[in-house]
């Protein structure tokens, strides 16, 4: 597999430790950035690279950094968002587990560029085993002079702390994450003010995803322009895709942006096709929050072009016939998968994870779950399907944070593309249940 950037050297035994990582070219980018470049030059390289936020929204990282309030005399903070809880997404976990130093390296350079002296890694509570790995890596970096006071003899000092959350999905939203980091209830804040002006403890703060920050090291090593050459159009570089579902080879893959979706699903290098050689039914390409697409629309756009793994191509056709790259949680469903059951399962998750602060999300997620439960459990009515569409529409865009949208999109898209299946559940509930029972016995 060529073209690996983030996961390069991942197969080297012992790469998790400092010595092996260092002897494989680790921390050279830190030396380069701190010794040869200025803050502005590092930011310029990141700008040139066209790196976009890998947490889901795909916001240009350089632009986000430029929003940071540099006039303020308050301390600045960099927070690494490692609260990866999106169903279907497990790329950050993999990266931190195998290459913790890649993240630390990115954090040092980013902090240098932003003028940050304290950096936090907010990690999901369920990733408890990773806390030890990261803290060991931080300790090693301290020992070898890459963290602490006067790094590499320059004026730049930095400390990194790992902070485990209590395992709430909502704390992956950047302002809820900051609240939680401050020790409060993890409720998203009302924006504006944005974290770039008033973030952690009211100070200017940048919050970036693990994968985004990890990519900063390689960008400095190879140069922003060289990084921008990889990929396609505005989707530059490589992306970690965590593939799961009914496929032959589930796992985390680093792909070059612009790879056709069809190749990704069927190539033996990646997913290797559908398990048991069944037919592809649907794909959620970017973590459970993004709209689901049926097989024909995920392989080619409504215009008939080949669908590529880029931010633009997947979003082609907007919500009518498109979806989003999101966080790269690639969930594949085969012909036997029940979309209704799956949608119910997702709404159950969002109902459980809604913080309950604003009314559309608090009440709407619960309502959708209850209605879908009824449809799935043989008590559905035809009018319920339109009711779900209406509730999803009322939630979408009217909430404080994007969790409302994330809960509404899967339901709206599932009904848009698989309405027949919902109707089938309402009209022939017994038959649907029988079919599922049959499948359960089979596997």
């Amino acid at each position: 597999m060529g073209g690996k950037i983030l996961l390069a050297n991942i197969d080297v035994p012992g790469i998790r430790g400092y010595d092996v990582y260092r002897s494989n070219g680790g921390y050279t980018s830190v030396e380069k950035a701190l010794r040869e470049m200025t803050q502005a030059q590092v930011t310029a390289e990141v700008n040139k690279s066209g790196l976009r936020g890998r947490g889901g929204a795909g916001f240009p990282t350089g632009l986000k950094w430029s929003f940071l309030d540099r006039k303020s005399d308050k301390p600045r903070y960099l927070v690494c968002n490692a609260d990866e809880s999106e169903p279907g997404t497990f790329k950050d976990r993999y990266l931190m587990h195998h290459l913790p130093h890649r993240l630390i390296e990115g954090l040092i350079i980013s902090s240098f560029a932003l003028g940050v002296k304290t950096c936090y890694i907010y990690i999901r509570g369920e990733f408890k085993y990773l806390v030890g790995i990261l803290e060991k890596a931080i300790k090693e970096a301290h020992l070898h002079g890459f963290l602490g006071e006067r790094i590499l003899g320059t004026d730049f000092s930095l400390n990194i702390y790992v902070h485990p959350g209590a395992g709430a999905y909502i704390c992956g939203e950047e302002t809820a994450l900051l609240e939680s980091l401050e020790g409060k209830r993890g409720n998203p804040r009302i924006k504006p003010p944005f974290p770039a002006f008033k973030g952690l403890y009211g100070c200017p703060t940048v919050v970036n995803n693990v994968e985004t920050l990890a990519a900063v090291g390689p960008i400095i090593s190879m140069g922003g322009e060289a990084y921008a050459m990889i990929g396609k159009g505005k989707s530059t570089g490589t992306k970690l895709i965590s593939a799961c579902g009914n496929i032959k080879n589930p796992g985390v893959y680093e792909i070059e942006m612009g790879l056709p979706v069809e190749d990704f699903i069927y190539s033996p290098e990646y997913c290797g096709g559908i398990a048991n050689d069944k037919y592809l039914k649907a794909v959620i390409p970017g973590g459970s929050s993004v709209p689901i697409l049926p097989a024909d629309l995920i392989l080619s756009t409504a215009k008939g072009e080949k669908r590529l793994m880029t931010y633009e191509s997947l979003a082609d056709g907007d919500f009518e016939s498109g979806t989003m790259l999101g966080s790269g949680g690639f969930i594949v469903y085969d012909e036997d998968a029940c979309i209704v059951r799956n949608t119910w399962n997702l709404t159950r998750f969002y109902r459980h994870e809604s913080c309950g602060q604003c009314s559309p999300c608090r009440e709407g997620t619960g309502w959708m779950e209850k209605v879908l439960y009824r449809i799935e459990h043989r008590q559905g009515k035809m009018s319920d399907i339109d009711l779900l569409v209406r509730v999803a529409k009322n939630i979408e865009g009217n909430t404080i944070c994007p969790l409302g949208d994330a809960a509404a999109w899967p339901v709206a898209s599932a009904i848009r593309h698989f309405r027949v299946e919902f109707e089938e559940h309402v009209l022939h509930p017994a038959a649907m249940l029988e079919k599922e029972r049959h499948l359960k016995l089979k596997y």
Partner: protein
Amino acid sequence: MLKVTIDNISIEVEEGTTILNAARMIGGKVVPPAMCYYSKLKGSGGKCRTCLVKVSHSSAKDPRPMGKLVASCSTPVQDGMVVQNLTSPEVIETRKGIVEFLLLNHPLDCPVCDQAGECDLQDLSFGFGMEETATEEERREFPMIDIGEKIKLHMNRCILCYRCVYTADQLTEKRLHGVLYRGDVSEIGTFIQHAVTNDFSGNMIDVCPVGALTDKTFRFKSRVWFLNPMNAHRDCPACSGKVTAWMFGNEIYRITGRKDRYGELEEFICNECRFEKKDINDWVIEGPRHIRRQSVISANHYEEMKKQSLIDPIAGTMESLT
């Protein structure tokens, strides 16, 4: 000064004013309803989403419309901003949806609720609610609890506006209650019953937009529209002592703070005034309190009207007679 236009009415406001407060300066029908925002409580607002409005011009510099509806209580005004509230069908539709969400788990027990007649949610449902319910799901249920000696918490009715939490945070030294759990099972609660004993805790009852927090000294005594609200005051060492006494004949049924036309307290009052002083001799009665004539409480309530506002058509419609 920044110029903002709300429903085709322009006004100049100071920098940092929110859309909601600008609308309140205009007054009348352009004011979006607010269930969670409370001007006296810092940090409140943005939660209920009933005050969502459409911004069709972001500012004079950037005439593009904002992509989503924005919460008017937490969005500051920009110069040249054009806002649509009731003139936008999208806003009305969305507000109907929000009211539906708020009522989804609300027990609708208005006939036995002490808040009926002065309930913000009732007004809101009257304005924007649907005629029939679309849900057949069971409503969530919580047991009723006493959170203080004098305060009853009826969690079923709560719309989680967080006002009482902010009140306790900002008026008392140690907050003893808060929001527990999350999502649609989150609730207001204390870890220990009867724990709330702070001197100003009674104000939670007044800030509550619904009947979730009620005064135990007044529960089931009378419907509010049978009582006459009178301005009264006394010398109180703890608070200003300016209250509204709700009277029937010469008997005081309950004491609340004085509320302005948006249902917000003018001043917070102490628990002694609120719960202990129920004798008419404790108070100096000033006269009848003004009640909006649209309110059900104004029935059989007589007061002298300001003549000027009656003859001056520019001063506003009947509605803005405060």
